């Protein structure tokens, strides 16, 4: 079983360079992973078990190596590796730094990232899979175990890229996926993984991240004694029903009173109520129409828009806990925002800015990005162009500071025009309008 290779053993990369084994890192279902020295830098080497070292796998890897990674979030096969003394082959990829944690640790409650970090991670995952799908590839095994993220920043890394293949390939595939994440039509044995089944797995992953449970595990699991393959086939394949399906309550989420184990959606029920309607609607679409019709699944772009809007909707209650602004509630006459989930008091919304379709909460630490400023959204939140700031002498006055390279033209509430040069701020006041250049914004309260 373990240790197909030993420390100091030298294997050769596909291009003929030596690659020296430093140490054993771990084993998986298909092989073992080692830390290696390749050309003076440390990399990871996955070496396949004999039964997995098939000519098909080798050919797939060869194609991935020449294709190159879709974006830098993938621990992509950089080169193949061979050894004279050991049968089979392996491939070399970048090492995953230790600060990247598995999504397993998240759902096990072992790490407590901020909401923003979680949303960033979700956005990065969707962006990464979108870039892969755009290249005509399918990932085919999206699951907890293959996605890692940095809880401090939300940055992600995607492992196990050796199952990636051309979408709709007719060649037999290595894997069908991880049972809990497989699309119903794969569980039922009707199709092979494609980019459409990836979309289902991606939605399940996102549901786990935001709701701490499986979207299809509700009342029905509470009646199952033994959770094994036949049980999974029923819940995920032949009788799948969303735990929040508005038209079918047969598998509804059960609260802690009705199911003390929490397995039947207990936590999902707690989280579900926190989110704005637009997020709940997107999940509902994924797991109702999208569950039954692969052609009507929520696309990567829909997810990006939903998640970006969710990022913009986060605001801090006076108690300090993050809550979400729901534009739907604000629009509905007579409706009141939910109480803060933590202190259970009425929430006080911060200043917010409307820019085109986006509505962004202006918290003490909020930033605006080029993403907010143009129709061509890039879902990139790395380089801000504006930042909420506090007045240097009067802490009761808040402003929006111009971090861009160009001046803004501001229309103050009294109608007067004012230039705000880079580095200067405009006070936050209702009805202030800002011409950012590429877009116009209006401050609300």
């Amino acid at each position: 079983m373990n240790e197909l290779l030993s420390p100091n053993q030298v294997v050769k990369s596909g291009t003929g360079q030596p690659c020296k084994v430093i140490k054993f890192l771990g084993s998986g279902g298909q092989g073992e992973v080692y830390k290696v020295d390749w050309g003076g830098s440390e990399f990871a080497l996955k070496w396949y078990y004999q039964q997995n070292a098939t000519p098909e796998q080798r050919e797939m890897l060869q194609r991935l190596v020449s294709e190159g990674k879709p974006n830098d979030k993938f621990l992509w096969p950089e080169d193949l590796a061979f050894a004279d003394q050991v049968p089979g082959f392996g491939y070399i990829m970048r090492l995953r730094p230790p600060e990247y944690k598995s999504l397993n640790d998240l759902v096990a409650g072992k790490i407590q990232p901020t909401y923003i970090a979680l949303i960033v991670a979700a956005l990065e995952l969707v962006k990464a899979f979108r870039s892969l799908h755009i290249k005509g590839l399918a990932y085919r095994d999206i699951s907890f175990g293959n996605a890692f993220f940095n809880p401090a920043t939300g940055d992600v890394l995607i492992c196990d890229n050796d199952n990636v293949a051309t979408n709709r390939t007719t060649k037999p595939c290595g894997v069908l996926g991880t049972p809990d994440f497989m699309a119903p039509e794969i569980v039922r044995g009707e199709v092979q993984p494609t980019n459409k089944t990836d979309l289902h797995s991606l939605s399940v992953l996102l549901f786990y991240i935001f709701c701490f449970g499986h979207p299809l595990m509700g009342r029905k699991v509470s009646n199952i004694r033994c959770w094994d393959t036949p049980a999974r086939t029923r819940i995920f394949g032949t009788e799948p029903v969303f735990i929040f399906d508005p038209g079918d309550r047969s598998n509804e989420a059960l609260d802690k009173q009705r199911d003390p184990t929490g397995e039947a959606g207990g936590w999902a029920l707690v989280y579900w109520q926190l989110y704005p309607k637009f997020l709940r609607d997107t999940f509902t679409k994924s797991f109702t129409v999208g569950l039954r019709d692969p052609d009507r699944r929520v696309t990567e772009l829909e997810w990006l828009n939903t998640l970006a809007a969710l990022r913009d909707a986060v605001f801090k209650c006076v108690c300090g806990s993050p809550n979400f602004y729901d534009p739907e509630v604000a629009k509905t006459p007579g409706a009141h925002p939910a109480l803060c989930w933590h202190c259970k008091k009425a929430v006080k919304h911060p200043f917010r800015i409307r820019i085109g379709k986006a509505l962004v909460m202006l918290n003490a630490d909020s930033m605006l990005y080029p993403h907010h400023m143009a129709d061509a959204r890039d879902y990139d939140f790395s380089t801000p162009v504006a930042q909420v700031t506090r007045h240097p002498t009067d802490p009761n006055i808040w402003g929006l500071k111009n971090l861009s390279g160009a001046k803004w033209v501001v229309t103050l509430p009294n109608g007067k025009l004012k230039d705000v040069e880079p580095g200067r701020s405009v006070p936050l006041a209702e009805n202030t309008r800002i011409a950012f250049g590429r877009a116009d914004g209006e401050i609300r309260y």
Partner: protein
Amino acid sequence: MPERPGGSLAKRPLQFIWIVDCSGSMQGRKIESLNLAIRESIKPMQDVADENPNAEIFIRVVKFSDGAQWHISEPTEVHAFKWSDLDAGGMTDMGKALTMLADAMKVETMPQRGLPPVLVLISDGQPTDDFKGGLKTLMAQPWGLKAVRISVAIGEDADLDVLQEFIGNPEIKPLVASNVQDLVKKIKWASTVPLKAASNPASRPQGATNGGSNVQIPAPPADAKPTSPADVF
């Protein structure tokens, strides 16, 4: 002020039971290396539990020689589990051990909801009592039927037919340990891989059928190459 309401995934209990042959023929080096092998398997089993947000693993041990007896009767959470050495001597009453297991697998004594139990039978010889009767009693229990059953044969004299019958799935063969290193390796495999498969199935390879079984078990490691003759039991 907390960032999020908290929470973690619900866990299902998984009952793991070792069923160990402590007959006279196990005396000496065999039982000693078995004790070591199981001791060394505990950490990897804990790792399986740590990597798996859905399962809580509980361990028990049955031993058989003249009759059968619980060596560790209390289902013990894997992180709290401690191995105490087994001694050998006596007959091979495997059937009795399986009858005891059947009691433990009764619906009334098992948790209301769980993962498939994992039963690992380790033996070096021929049952001296009614093996078939014991197996029948075990398989009459729904949890016995649902259990992942794995067996490890120690040395040449183990009854492979009996060990195969215990598994009850022609696609999974008893693991045969032909020397000390091999025993450690096979026991480690038997105590971790089926555990992982029963608790949190990994990527499913295409075409994995596993004889219609309810849990897909990956192929065991290839047999070790012969080492020094002095090593053979």
